[in-house]
């Protein structure tokens, strides 16, 4: 009995440590106080001023950039990653092992290394940094995750169904579109969502590839804002919204994974 209470208590203690910072921001997003920690009564003012715009033109821009980059990067890496997964799946087992290992390296690699190396790459090729380079960088680090989420679907697939489609008169391309694609679609969607969230919250890679033309994403904006001294109060409702969005996406991914396992 005692040990059970202890175990439970420990769990709650851990959860509190993990989530209290986020909870504090969420709670204080519903008040007007400029300084975090002062409670001046319940209010939606920060939310309304966040969306009324005008005042924080650069913040709104940063949000737009973030979502535009995430959308493009997630779409392209989903396409690239799915094709790559199919290619790896069709390799002989030895080459497949090598390719899977290669695919895992960028995932294990610290973001900061990825960021620096991409920065050096763009500089050495004389590519001026801006929106395009950020998108390219995000595609580069998102694609391996898509490969990882599509591969299990391919492994689960009956290996004969591609041949069955050819046998029934489908060209290789038709077989891919009508049989393989519907089979791996759930994996592609999970990969897309994963890539999207990874792109939204990335800071390390973005800061190295964003250049100095004044382009900002949410993460670089907040970083710059904090350096200027004190966070803009509107970041509190924004953080809350992003946290809830990501939470919902995470729940969706997990539910999908559960459903697939049951199948």
């Amino acid at each position, binding site marked *: 009995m005692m040990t059970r209470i202890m175990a439970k208590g420990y769990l709650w203690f851990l959860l509190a440590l993990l989530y209290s910072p986020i909870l504090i921001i969420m709670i204080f997003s519903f008040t007007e106080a400029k300084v975090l920690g002062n409670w001046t009564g319940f209010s939606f003012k920060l939310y309304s001023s966040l969306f009324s715009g005008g005042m924080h033109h650069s913040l709104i821009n940063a949000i737009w950039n973030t979502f535009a980059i995430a959308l493009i990067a997630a779409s392209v890496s989903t396409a690239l990653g799915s094709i790559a997964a199919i290619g790896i799946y069709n390799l002989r087992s030895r080459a497949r092992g090598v390719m899977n290992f290669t695919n895992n390296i960028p995932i294990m690699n610290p973001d900061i290394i990825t960021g620096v190396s991409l920065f050096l790459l763009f500089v050495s090729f004389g590519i001026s940094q801006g929106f395009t380079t950020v998108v390219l960088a995000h595609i580069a680090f998102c694609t391996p995750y898509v490969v990882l989420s599509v591969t299990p679907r391919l492994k689960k697939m*009956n290996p*004969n169904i591609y*041949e069955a489609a050819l046998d029934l008169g*489908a*060209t290789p391309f038709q077989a891919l579109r009508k049989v393989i694609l*519907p089979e791996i679609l759930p994996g592609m969607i999970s990969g897309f969502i994963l890539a999207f969230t990874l792109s939204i919250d990335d800071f390390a890679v973005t800061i190295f590839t964003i250049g100095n033309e004044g382009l900002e994403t949410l993460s670089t904006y907040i970083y710059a804002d904090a350096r200027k001294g004190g966070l803009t109060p509107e970041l509190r409702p924004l953080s809350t919204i992003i946290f809830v969005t990501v939470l919902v996406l995470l729940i969706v991914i997990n539910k999908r994974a559960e459903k697939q396992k049951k*199948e």
Partner: protein
Amino acid sequence: MQQSNYIIEVQHVSKRFGEKVALDDIHLNVKKGEFVTILGPSGCGKTTLLRLIAGFQTASEGTIKIAGEEITQTPPHMRPVNTVFQKYALFPHLNVYDNIAFGLKLKKTPQQVIEKKVKAALKMVGMTDYEDRDVDSLSGGQQQRVAIARAIVNEPEVLLLDEPLAALDLKMRKDMQMELKEMHQKLGITFVYVTHDQEEALTLSDTIVVMSEGKIQQIGTPMDIYNEPINSFVADFIGESNILNGTMVKDKLVHFAGHEFECVDKGFGEDMPVDVVIRPEDIYIFDPSDAAQLTGVVTSCIFKGVHFEMLVQTQEGYELMVQDYHSFEAGREVGLLVKPFDIHVMKKERTCNTFEGKMLDNTHVEFLGCSFECIAQEGLEAGDKVQVEVDFQHVNLQDNEEDGVLSGDVKFILYKGNHYHLTVFTDWDEDIYVDTNDVWDDGDRVGISIAPEHIRLNKL
């Protein structure tokens, strides 16, 4: 225009995967409307042959024609054949109707025609009213029926079936066998059926092709294959059989199991070593009497449903399997009799191991990639190429592979009444044949050695 009676012509076809030879110079002609079964143990190349006909793999050598047209290099979607796969391979995201309509839709068939044909195909496989079902909700047997419907709805010239019933339970398999046979008669198209189940092959086929190790061993009707197996492999693979070493004394007289027997075979020459095959149901068993050709003691008796299966140890030390409707319990003395036309005599494929070798020095010869000690022989010097002969019974096998000069895997075991005839696949990729009284299992790893005095050398 070259006319031919054959719907499928496979000529000189070989298939290699790297170093491994999967198919070795295959010839096979299939008549229109025939039910042909390709039968063999796993790894014999039967599925590879089917995949070459379907177009999923291409032959390393040789040509394949379907309906007189060469299709050796044609991709699968342009061949007039359809395949039923072992694991059904239905498209899980489509329902029964869309699965069956898949091929017709690709051919841009009008909607009404598709509907009519799908309905007819479903009726053919006994699955009427299942159109809207999810394929995952169907049982294994039902899925295989849908897979068959999906193939036959395209009205192919040839239907290829790759062990279609292997995943089903026994009862379902028996039912489906009968239905397949009926379907074949109704449709009138050619069936090429791959299986490792000899009973299935005997039940279904017009023609059976027995394969082993990438080669066709025998082609014939089920009756031919069962009654006149061409070699000991086929005899052992199809049905139960007693296979013994024998000697053809002269025409119509064969010596085996310590006695001479009248038989109907001739043309082997005198005193030729042969394999003798007798089906267990062809041996008469009765209480000892003057009519007995052999006498012995029953060592085991098992009830098999319709008949009893008994093992009889003869006075001369041979063990024979006998099937009869009457039981003779273990320990009882019995007489045995075989009628001349039930004795099947087959030429031996080989009477000893032969290898090509090279003399290393006076007392060492190299073959099978290893150096063996041998007896010095006049006229043989280092570097001479020689033919090496070793009798089956003089090859020694050891449990511990390090104890042998080389090692290998036991891959085929034939019981010959009083000893085992093993085929051992050596690490040098060549087979060595061994006669032994020891019991080995398929797949055992063994060491191989040969005593110097048993290595016979002939200069080439």
